[in-house]
């Protein structure tokens, strides 16, 4: 019987500070056993994993690397609680564990042939980065129509994956709408404004072939919903990734539920239509 609580052992291969305030770091992990890597590498963009630090505990974090990137996995972690604070103090070469991949993913089969609008805010851009890398991969790009990305953070220095964002800006197979809440930088050549406002201005109007994937803090989600509705998106066309406090990650410990749905196993990805049928306890 496979024990779903046992993490795969990994070594920290690289740590990069991700934001100017140093509250986010991107960790690159390499699996100690090749067969573990093989099993884990079947993940799809949108899934998460439990980062497991022996003696400290576990945290559920979205997978920021993409299934098309081989040989490692990446997670960008905000320093906020006991486990994340400990993780921020760990060093390259330290050994810990990863349990997963867990949960469902953005509905890639259904999205084939569709236009995709990605909307993200703050540090909830990790699984969206995974998704963009996946869609832009030469083997996959032709399967999707137009790709639009609205991504915002408080300041330019708080945007995640800045090098990649600016690289995507130069491409013609993805429409980037980067925004910040505000900046003193006179050289800032992108948008200024909150994500919902930029969505309303820049995101494509809805048609039957267009789907929006939204991931961000509750306040951004709350105000993005009406913006998308104005653009004509119905609740089946709005796909969201939720987060709740989790422990087991496999649908057994009982704390992450919204109604009868468990965010860890039945989610974290839901359509707005599904979410609207459940109590909004997230």
């Amino acid at each position: 019987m496979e024990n779903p609580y046992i993490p795969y052992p990994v070594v920290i291969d690289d740590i990069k500070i991700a934001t100017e305030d140093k509250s986010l770091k991107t960790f690159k992990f390499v699996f100690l056993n090749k067969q573990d890597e093989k099993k884990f590498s079947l993940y799809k963009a949108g899934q998460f994993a439990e980062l497991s630090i022996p003696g400290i505990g576990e945290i559920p974090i979205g997978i920021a690397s993409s299934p098309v990137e081989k040989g490692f996995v990446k997670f960008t972690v905000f320093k906020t609680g006991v486990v994340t604070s400990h993780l921020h103090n760990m060093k390259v070469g330290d050994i810990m564990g990863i349990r997963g991949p867990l949960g469902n993913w953005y509905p890639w089969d259904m999205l084939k042939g569709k236009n995709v609008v990605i909307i993200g805010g703050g540090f909830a851009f990790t699984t969206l980065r995974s998704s963009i890398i996946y869609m832009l991969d030469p083997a996959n790009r032709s399967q999707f129509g137009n790709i639009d990305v609205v991504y915002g953070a408080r300041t330019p220095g708080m945007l995640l994956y800045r090098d990649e964002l600016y690289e995507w800006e130069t491409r013609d197979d993805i429409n980037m709408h980067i925004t910040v809440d505000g900046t003193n930088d006179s050289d800032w050549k992108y948008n200024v404004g909150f994500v919902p406002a930029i969505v309303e201005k820049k995101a494509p109007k809805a048609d039957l072939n267009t789907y929006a994937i939204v991931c961000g803090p509750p306040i951004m989600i709350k105000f993005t919903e009406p913006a998308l509705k104005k653009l004509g998106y119905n609740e089946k066309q709005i796909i969201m990734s939720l987060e709740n406090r989790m422990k087991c990650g496999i649908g057994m410990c009982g704390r992450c539920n919204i109604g009868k749905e468990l965010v860890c196993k039945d989610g974290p990805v839901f359509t707005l239509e599904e979410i609207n049928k459940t109590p909004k306890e997230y």
Partner: protein
Amino acid sequence: MKVIKINKKDWENGINQSKKEYQLFGPVKEKDNYIFKKLQLDEYPDMEHKDTLVSPKSILFPQTEKILQTNLDESIDDHHIMKQVKKDYSKRAVISIKPYDAKAIQILNLNFDTDEYKDPYWCEAYKATTFIGLAVNNPSVFDFSSSTNTGPFAEQGLDVLLIDCSKEYLAKVLTDKGQAFLDVAGFNQETDNKKAIEIINNMKKKAENAISSQISTQNLKDKNTLDLYEAPFWDDIAFSCINCGTCSFVCPTCWCFDIQDETKGNLSYRIRNWDTCMSPLFTLHASGHNPRGEKTMRVRQRFMHKLKYFLDKYDNGIMCVGCGRCVKLCPVNIDIRKVCNLMNSHEPDTDN
């Protein structure tokens, strides 16, 4: 179905015999309460016991359980690599479990043994366990099990059902596992099956008739989840609740747990502990946000989970077996029977 007759004079001898192959668990009196515990060589299950304070779910799902371990000493091989804690899953039998508690084990099994994931600690313990039930001849005033898909003589989840007929037990053999236990114990006196079943059925009817309280659940399935969630009665129900968690602690069907790491020296264990949705910490995010931050939300979660979410998810009845422990032990008299009937008869205000 076979029925075996066990003369009470032979009972303790049979228990002694079975201890040679099985670890036995049974109800014993400790201080003022009965609890299920592992029986020592000179201990016997108390067959006259009323309710045990907590349910025997702890035999398969301990209140606290080490699940993984590792060594943090970086000078040794395999440091920081977590491994399953080795456990004894040799044969065990639970003696004198009540039919509703056995039904509760079946409900827990739905959570721990799924198509996608199997909890190895639960599954191994479940596989190793034989359930020897004792029919309830005199239901307590808190018992409402006849309206929760079980009852004083229900057989679901049992391998043997014992019926106490004053001088003897009649033992209904329900599974091969049950037969194997009776063989080891040396209980093999066959009896006139037809007559025995008739006696059992009469006693069953009498016991069912002695149950005085019922709940109505027939409308719950068709109710809209959000209508029930937004019903006006939740504040009233939760008003007196002190979020002590007694209800989920004593509940035979509550399965929620927490996972914590504990380290002594370099030896580190990952441990799971029973948890309760009555605690605000249960859902508190690291950010400080709490999706069930208000007491009413937590009380509502408990009842909605048992009486609606579970029903919708599994289409297999409600997540309550009618044991009455939470009704009896709630310090502020919150009564799941009343809540269930309120939910079952709730009609949303259609004026809005």
